[in-house]
């Protein structure tokens, strides 16, 4: 029997409570993040909610300028944005704070960089961002 849950709603609900929640596969133990009903490693559908550590390594990034392609984020531009490999395995891309974006070459030369997740309210939505650990 299929036990579907409102994953997107729950994900953002947890974020508004200060928790970054993902899923863990009961068959292969892989972490499924962001949450979806099917394990992307082995295809199993029995997954448990778990709190993520928020720790990871920044693997790549860029800096979006005031000519941002999303006008939604214009007030924040320029901002850094990158892909993080979480400690638990999954990749996630998000806004980066706490880096000196006036020296992007130095950020580039230091990759990969240890980062930690921080929940921030961005344009009225609590979302995951990352900062240097």
């Amino acid at each position, binding site marked *: 029997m299929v036990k579907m849950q409102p994953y*997107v709603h729950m*994900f*953002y609900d947890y974020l508004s409570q200060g928790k970054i929640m993902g899923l863990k596969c009961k068959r292969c133990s892989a972490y499924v993040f*962001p949450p979806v009903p099917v394990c992307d490693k082995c295809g199993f559908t029995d997954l448990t909610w778990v709190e993520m550590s928020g720790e990871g390594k920044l*693997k*790549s*990034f*860029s*800096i*979006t*300028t005031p*000519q*941002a*392609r*999303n*006008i*939604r*984020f214009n007030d*924040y531009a320029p*901002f850094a*944005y*990158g*892909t993080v*490999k979480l400690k638990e395995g999954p*990749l*996630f*891309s*998000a*806004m980066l704070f706490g880096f000196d974006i006036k020296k*992007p*070459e130095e950020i*580039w030369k230091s*990759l990969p960089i240890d980062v930690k997740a921080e929940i921030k309210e*961005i*344009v009225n*939505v609590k*979302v*995951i961002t990352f900062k240097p650990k």
Partner: protein
Amino acid sequence: MNINLGNFKRGVSIIGVGVTPFKSVLDSPEMKGMTERELFSWAAIEAMEDAHVEPKDIDAFYCGATWATNMSNQSHMAPVLADWIGMRNKPGISIDAACVTTHAALRQAAITVASGLHDVVLVGGVEILSSRANYTAQTKKLPYAPSERTAVHGEDLWDMVSAGVIDNAYGYPHAMAPGVLTYAPLVLEYAKRYGLSLDKMEDVMMAISETIHRHGSLNPKANDNRTLKEIAAANGFDDVKKFWKSDSNPIIDWPCRRASYMIRADGASAIIVCAADIAKKYHDVPVDIIGTGLTAGTAISEDYTYYPLEASAIEQAYKMAKIDPKKIGYIYVHDCFQTAHITTSEALGYFNKGESWKAILEGRTAFDGDRPMNTTGGRGAMGHAFAASAGAEIGELVNQMRGEADKRQVSPAPELAVCHNQGSGFTLAVTVFRRR
């Protein structure tokens, strides 16, 4: 020579192509006042004439438009377009794959022909990005008029595109946008991997832009017919390099600059395929489809220079085609963001890993070089009419193979070519073509 497609018992050939100009329905004289319907049927009729077929000869069609819903309040286009191309009550359906639409539609058409279900199938795509129809929700205060449109500013277009093609649940709220993953980070990773300075990478990006604008200046259908030198001059610069590094060519996503990004266009494209064994009835020079690959997923990767979404599509296509990549004579790499010229060309085996940048600097990727690519001018000069762009490039590829690419003709005409398209969201398609 076995020209069957993969394990099918039939081959598939392209016998006709049609591409409208990629301009603006607001103010370009050749398409002023047109809707998606006129553009689509223009390309389709051109393809039919090229293939020497009439609608009665065509068994089915696939079509698509990425933004007709938002820009013109028109979704579910197949039934509408059926009437406009003389295909009422024949099998027809829309394909929804962003910038891959016409390429994915071609793949589906090829599969139905190879399976024996159909003998002749038409594929087409259309896009209007300059403007919104006056009766859409967004412009509801304007007087209703079925063919009137109002200009849409670039910023509004991008916001809509970002929200629409990127995953709305987990991507968009976290500031994901087309281009933030597989483009600027690509330059940084490639530079690090091969020990190149960012100054050198900037030279490479400028050389790519120079080449595509050279091609655009030789392509009457391109939205921008200026060379990079003319663009620099229009911005008040005698020296192209000074223009490149100026505020007139600002950094959009560090370290990539605006001239490395796409420009929009309104336009349509169409391709007609048929069973390989009857192709010569319609056209003297059939172009056979010998391999195709497609992936749907995310581009998110630990390594953006060679990432799984792309690698898998290439692998599928090459496994089916059984070719030696060194024999490829022409490629199109999807260049919404021109970084793909560097890495996708290598992923396709057109260059050895770590060598494309040198070839680009040496001008070898121009139509008159030994490793030609993107001879329409690509998305930065021909322009991007999302759903139609892949078809326009396949059209150019076919013309190159036939020796009909006019001032951009690759010499000798290529016998083996590959087309690569990527749509944000993400979809990625790769198809291998061989001239009979």
